[in-house]
């Protein structure tokens, strides 16, 4: 394996391996930016990994009033799951519990997909017979009476089968502070890329996993090869001067969006340099056997 060095940062000649996923998007609006974000934060909470949360979700972009259907501040939220059924279930649960409930909110389709996913057309029953269907052009909306007025919700949103989950960068640094600085810089750059979310807390995950475990009941367990405390006991990937590793995981609406986010993140990490940030950048894969998508770091260099 021949590694490259750019601006003093070692770039492993490896690739991130990612999987095809189902995804949808919605636009949440509210009387203020703050309340649009509150609703979005609530509905994308506990959505870091499909393994334990059922879906991965996050805010794609904030929208100014002139970019939303009703002229109020809003956000676009992306939701990823492994199957259409699970995506539908997560979407309705989360919108029903977190967006419908949020003061002044409204909810619209955020994606024109090949197939529709139910949104207002399922939530309308909350209206107990007082729900009102309105069609404007070729879009249908439901108005549900609630205690602060009406919850307006588009009947359906779109589904894409071209989404990709699991793009990633591994940032290897001398210490925890440097690893965090590099990861923060990477996430910030990736957030500017449309069509992607970084579902972990603040976009960063510290407990990367490998497939399998010594315990039969677990399908995944700690990524021992990248844990500095196990350096002396397992076949470690870490050099003696690496004491902390953080990972950024990226889900995107499309293959291209994931590549663009990884490219932007990689640039930010390289620009930060090895003294203040990561000394080495790698990526997680399964030998290329499991995932349909591969993102080679050398192809994504600035």
């Amino acid at each position, binding site marked *: 394996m021949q590694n490259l060095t750019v601006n003093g940062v070692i770039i492993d000649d490896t690739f991130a391996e990612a999987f095809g996923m189902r995804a949808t998007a919605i636009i949440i609006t509210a009387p203020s930016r703050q309340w649009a974000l509150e609703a979005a934060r609530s509905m994308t909470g506990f959505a870091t990994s499909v393994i334990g949360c059922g879906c991965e979700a996050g805010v794609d972009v904030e929208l100014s009033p002139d970019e939303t259907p*009703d002229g109020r501040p809003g956000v676009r939220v992306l939701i990823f799951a492994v199957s259409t059924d699970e995506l539908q279930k997560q979407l309705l649960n989360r919108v029903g519990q977190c967006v419908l409930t949020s003061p002044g909110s409204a909810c619209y389709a955020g994606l024109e997909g090949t197939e529709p996913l139910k949104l207002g057309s399922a939530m309308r029953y909350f209206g107990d017979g*007082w729900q*009102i*269907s*309105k*069609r*404007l052009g070729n879009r249908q*909306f439901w108005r549900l009476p609630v205690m602060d007025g*009406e919850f*307006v919700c588009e009947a359906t949103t779109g589904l894409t089968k071209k989404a990709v989950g699991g793009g990633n960068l591994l940032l290897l640094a001398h210490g925890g502070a440097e690893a965090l600085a590099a990861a923060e810089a990477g996430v910030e750059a990736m957030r500017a890329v449309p069509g992607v979310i970084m579902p972990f807390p603040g976009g960063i995950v510290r407990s990367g996993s490998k497939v399998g475990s010594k315990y039969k009941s677990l399908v995944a367990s700690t990524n021992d090869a990248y844990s500095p405390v196990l350096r002396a006991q397992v076949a470690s990937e870490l050099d003696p001067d690496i004491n902390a590793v953080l990972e950024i995981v990226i889900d995107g609406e499309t293959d291209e969006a994931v590549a663009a986010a990884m490219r932007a993140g990689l640039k930010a990490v390289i620009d930060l340099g090895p003294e203040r940030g990561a000394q080495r950048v790698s990526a997680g894969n399964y030998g290329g056997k499991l995932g349909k998508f591969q993102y080679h770091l050398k192809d994504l260099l600035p």
Partner: protein
Amino acid sequence: MSGLTFTLLAEPTQRLDLSPLTPQKLAGLSAGEIEKIELGGGGDQVKVGDCFKVEGSDPETIVFEGGSKRLDWIGTDMEAGSIRVTGDAGALLGRRMTGGSIVVKGSVGPYAGSQMQDGRVEIQGDAGDLAAGPMAGELRGMCGGTLIIRGRAGERLGDRMRRGLVAALGGCGDYPGSRMIAGTIVVAGEAGRMPGYLMRRGSILLDRPPQELSPTFIESGPWFSAFASLLERHLMQEGIVDYPFLGEGPMRYVGDNAVPGKGELVISSLKV
């Protein structure tokens, strides 16, 4: 290819049924064949060539040069393409159309947009009674699409309408939205008596109070909903109004409780 133009030779001596002259029905016909099409509607047998000079060849774009209140059934069952009438048109304009667009420069007779399913009809002048309504004995009126009347609409605008958008921008006669099943009616200008008479569901939006409000409509208070701005933006995008005409917290009335219905009548809070 240039659009197919029918220039009216003289004011017709009888009513003409122009339903055969739609983009779909004329596709693939030569000018000679088109001129031989018979137009019913009156006592005498009349052919297209007797009344119109036919020019051009592309039936996707049809123009009726000159108009008359006797030109009935224009754009009936039309599926796509466009029809433009440079003058007036008669009854039943765009009857049961499912797509495409019709623009009439002048005024039209009764039953414009009757039972239309989809597509867009724009009348720059006035419209007769029962625009977007059903014909006698039919249970529903307009079922989709957009009907815009820039002038004044007659009585019972949107009678038994089930879906779609109707806008009358020069006011309307009595009973707009009578027996309405669902859908949206927008009236700017003087609206007649008893809007929403016997309506079941649907929305009637007025830019000022009507001549008389039915006592069977109950005031439900000022309306604050994200849907108001969604609707206003849609109307502006469609070129129907050019400002957010409902204002802040327009008054909402619900009814018609004589049915009883769950419809709504929303009156702009702006002074006109």
